[in-house]
């Protein structure tokens, strides 16, 4: 459990970066882990830079979960901030684990949750703006959506 976390993970858990919500975000992604019950929402704001590339200018998260879930949420926001959409889609769970200087093996699934939420936020952004959605992102979306429905059912009495 906690005694196996890296110092970097504990640092992000205790003082997570970029937590909160973005009103009128360009995209919001929600993902849940149906096994352990952790849930994450990720908000992105996308703008065009001088070269005309789409950049994730701002990103925020809200997470209900263990220390690893909160730390990986914080990590993914640090990793995507300022990146182009294409670059953000290339971020892997291993990048998050490396960024946190390691995660206990049983907590690796938390980094997948963070990536899922990111993909969902990008998926929503691309859909809203009628842009081409890469085939693999569509497939991922179908998988994540399925888990999310089960999770929503579980927490429906908590929704405000």
């Amino acid at each position, binding site marked *: *459990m*906690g005694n196996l976390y890296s110092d970097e993970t504990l640092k992000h*858990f*205790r003082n*997570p970066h970029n*937590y909160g919500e973005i009103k009128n975000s360009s995209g919001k992604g*929600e993902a849940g882990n149906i*096994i*352990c*019950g*952790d*849930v*994450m*929402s990720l908000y992105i704001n996308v703008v065009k830079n001088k070269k005309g590339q789409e950049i994730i200018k701002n990103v925020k*998260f*809200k*997470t*209900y*979960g*263990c*220390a*690893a*879930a*909160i730390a990986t*949420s914080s990590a993914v926001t640090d990793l995507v901030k300022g990146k182009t959409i294409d670059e953000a889609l290339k971020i892997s769970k291993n990048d998050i684990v490396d960024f946190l200087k390691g995660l206990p093996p*049983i907590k690796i*699934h938390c980094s997948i949750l963070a990536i899922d939420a990111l993909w969902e936020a990008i998926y929503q952004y691309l859909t809203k703006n009628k842009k081409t959605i890469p085939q693999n992102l569509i497939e991922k979306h179908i998988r994540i959506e399925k888990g999310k429905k089960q999770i929503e059912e*579980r*927490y429906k009495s*908590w*929704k*405000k």
Partner: protein
Amino acid sequence: MKKIYLDYAATTQVDPRVVKAMLPYFTQRYGNTMSLHKSGRDAALIMEKSREIVASLINSQTNEIIFTSSATESNNTVLKGLAFANSGRKSHLIISSIEHDCVLESASWLEKQGFEVTRLSVNKTGFINLEELRKAIKKETFLVSIIHGNNEIGTIQDIEAIGKICHEKNVLFHTDASQSLGKVNINVKKMNIDLLTASSHKIYGPKGAACLYKKEGIIIQPLLHGGGHEMGLRSSTSNVAAIVGFAEACQILKNEGKKENTRLIKLRNLLIDGILKSIKRTHLNGPKEKRLSNNVNISFRGVEGESLTMELDFNGVEVSTGSACSSRTLVPSHVLTAIGLPPEEAHGSIRFSLGRWTKEEDIIKTIEVLKKVVAKLRKFSPYG
């Protein structure tokens, strides 16, 4: 920062009086109980003296106490030892669905060896249904094993009534009293108990010592074969120092237990009321009455238990959680599931367990810290 330890159900600090009683048995009185010389006889004598003290706390005879190394060992000995002793004759045992893992896992292992296991359900506050028990007993049943005080939610079963049913049906009754010894008065004769497990490190004694009370005449097979220690039921060189410590811990309970429990109940209720009143979206798991004097189990909605445990730890408060995230298997506690708690409520559950050195100021401080850290974690949470 002063540490506030509220995990006495996990283990306790050894009482300094116990340490003092144990010390001579490391460097001066280190004999092997099986040796014929004076050092050996000294060791054997103090073992018998210790056995008397432990027996007296639960009103058993001295020869009915078998020393073991842990409650896990005692519970394994009861389930497997009785199963082996009944092999080929009786093949059914009954446990509850809120036993400690060592009983659950032993029962599951026996199931794989061909025995049949019934797991009794519990109600919302963790009590078994006596009628369900009565109906579950059949002619093949050789054992009913029901935990006395539950380690997670503090439910104290009506052991006397359970034992009565077992005896009416001619079935042996075992109870795991690891958490209840010292919190509830135990009288094995009056309470119809045939076998009982108790542990030293839960009552301010050292780890590595425990006992099994086995009513005279009951035949079990040993798990450990060898030199024939503990009436042939548990071979292994006697851990004299630890057992002396265990006995001393029992003696202290006998002298001070009643007063200590009155104090703990007051502090326990202070903590329960304090949390429920000052933090919204919280509820108590387990019963209000018939609850271990030192157990508090609360679910905090919108906050996950492992996060909360760690955040409390950073603030000097040590507790434990039934959250799936903190388990090796990522499933919520089987006890919380058995009382019908949905996964999301189990996910935010925290167990506080009080003890001999818990002070009122610790409880007040804990409530203050909780208010702060729950608010902090709820800020990060989509259900905050």
